[in-house]
């Protein structure tokens, strides 16, 4: 029993059908609990006041936005190497979800930045690289929707995803070079001395878990929809032949 058995769409549909409700409920519960805990049960920051609480949306969305691209990269690689159709569909399904998460991260960041930094937008390296990530998502989705032949589209977007990943990382460090930052550094890394205080950390963790599950649930649901759409397409073609 290996992981590759789920490359078979029938097996994938069976498994994802069983997992999906759990993921969806888990995501809903975790996000609700994390947000409620974070919004109402944590103290206000002594300098930022209540604005700090947007972190419970901002950080998980940013996390999912970046890891969503990573998931697309892995799925594209599997598609290009092993030609499993489910994998290509997962990459396709993940893109709009990741793009929306990028927008959420940018928007919540702007809403927080207006009172805190005194501006909606600054050309800070982190903000800029997120904007560039958004553009990459946009191009990727546009290429998917521009090509009609599904297999060609999967191949070309896969190649674009690989090249785009390299350039995304390159741009990330290029913008570091280009402008000094306003954004605070990593506050959640495991080995950092200056992490956020534990009171903020636990609800944030719950919220992040919720967002990850939300991402997985949405991607699975979208992939299942796409598989069904293709089956329908084949059935229609068959009907026309008879």
């Amino acid at each position, binding site marked *: 029993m290996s992981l590759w058995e789920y490359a078979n769409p029938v097996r994938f549909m069976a498994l994802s059908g069983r997992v999906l409700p759990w993921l969806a409920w888990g995501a809903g519960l975790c996000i609700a609990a994390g947000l409620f805990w974070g919004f109402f049960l944590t103290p206000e920051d002594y300098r930022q006041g209540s604005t700090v609480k947007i972190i419970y949306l901002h950080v998980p969305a940013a996390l999912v936005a970046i890891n969503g691209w990573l998931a697309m990269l892995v799925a594209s690689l599997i598609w290009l190497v092993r030609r499993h159709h489910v994998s290509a569909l997962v990459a396709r399904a993940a893109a709009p979800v990741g793009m929306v998460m990028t927008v959420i991260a940018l928007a919540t960041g702007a809403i927080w930045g207006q009172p805190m930094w005194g501006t909606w937008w600054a050309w800070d390296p982190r903000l800029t690289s997120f904007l560039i990530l958004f*553009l990459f998502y946009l191009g990727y989705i546009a*290429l998917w929707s521009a090509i009609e032949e599904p297999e060609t589209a999967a191949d070309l977007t896969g*190649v674009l995803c690989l090249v785009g990943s390299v350039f995304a990382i*390159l*741009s990330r460090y290029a*913008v570091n070079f280009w402008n000094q930052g306003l954004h605070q550094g990593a506050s959640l890394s495991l080995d950092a001395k200056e992490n956020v205080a534990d009171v903020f950390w636990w609800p944030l963790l719950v919220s992040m878990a919720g967002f990850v599950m939300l991402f997985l649930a949405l991607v699975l649901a979208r992939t299942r929809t796409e598989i069904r759409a293709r089956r329908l397409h084949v059935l229609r073609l068959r009907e026309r032949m008879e």
Partner: protein
Amino acid sequence: MRALLLRDLRLAVRSGGGFGLSLAFFLIVTVLIPFGVGPEPGVLARIAPGALWIGALLAVLLSLDRIFALDREDGTLDLLATAPIPLEAVAATKALAHWLTTGLPLALVAPGLGVLLNLAPAATGWLIGSLLLGTPALSVIGAFGAALTVGLKRGGLLMSLLVLPLYVPTLIFGALAVGRGGAGADAATPLMMLAGVSLGTVAVLPFATAAALRINLR
């Protein structure tokens, strides 16, 4: 390969294939900028490095679709794919031909346009150098974008959407080198980074271009 290179060069120069057009486009963009931001010399000198780089980048972008689109239409691309030379070499050669007919002339006329934008005299050398080092990357990345969209009927707009984000590192380092060179600061570091971007893309991207072409020719 040499025959292919010469053929592409000849096509670009002779048949109104847009050899002069990208230069004219570069000129027009540069002329429009003072109309947009006002004629004060200080402001112009401040934005000249970035404005010239963006103008050059857009000029390159507009000429990208001639790399593969015409050859695809008349079937030359199919012949090239079955020719005894590897498709990777075809991709690299066509990118080189594109650079010789676009990037190189752009780099050579850029100082003249720099005068229009009141570019600091100290920056002129850095401008030529950075364009010479950076435009190969623009051509190679552009060839990749052109290969991705070669099968589409109206791929031009989509291609700009795909290619422009990939141009970000090149633009950052290129404009930074000119700006720092003009201010008398250390411009060697961004220039070296720019050379690194160019060398890396020239080495790797022809393979991605060839892969995209193969998929499109299937």
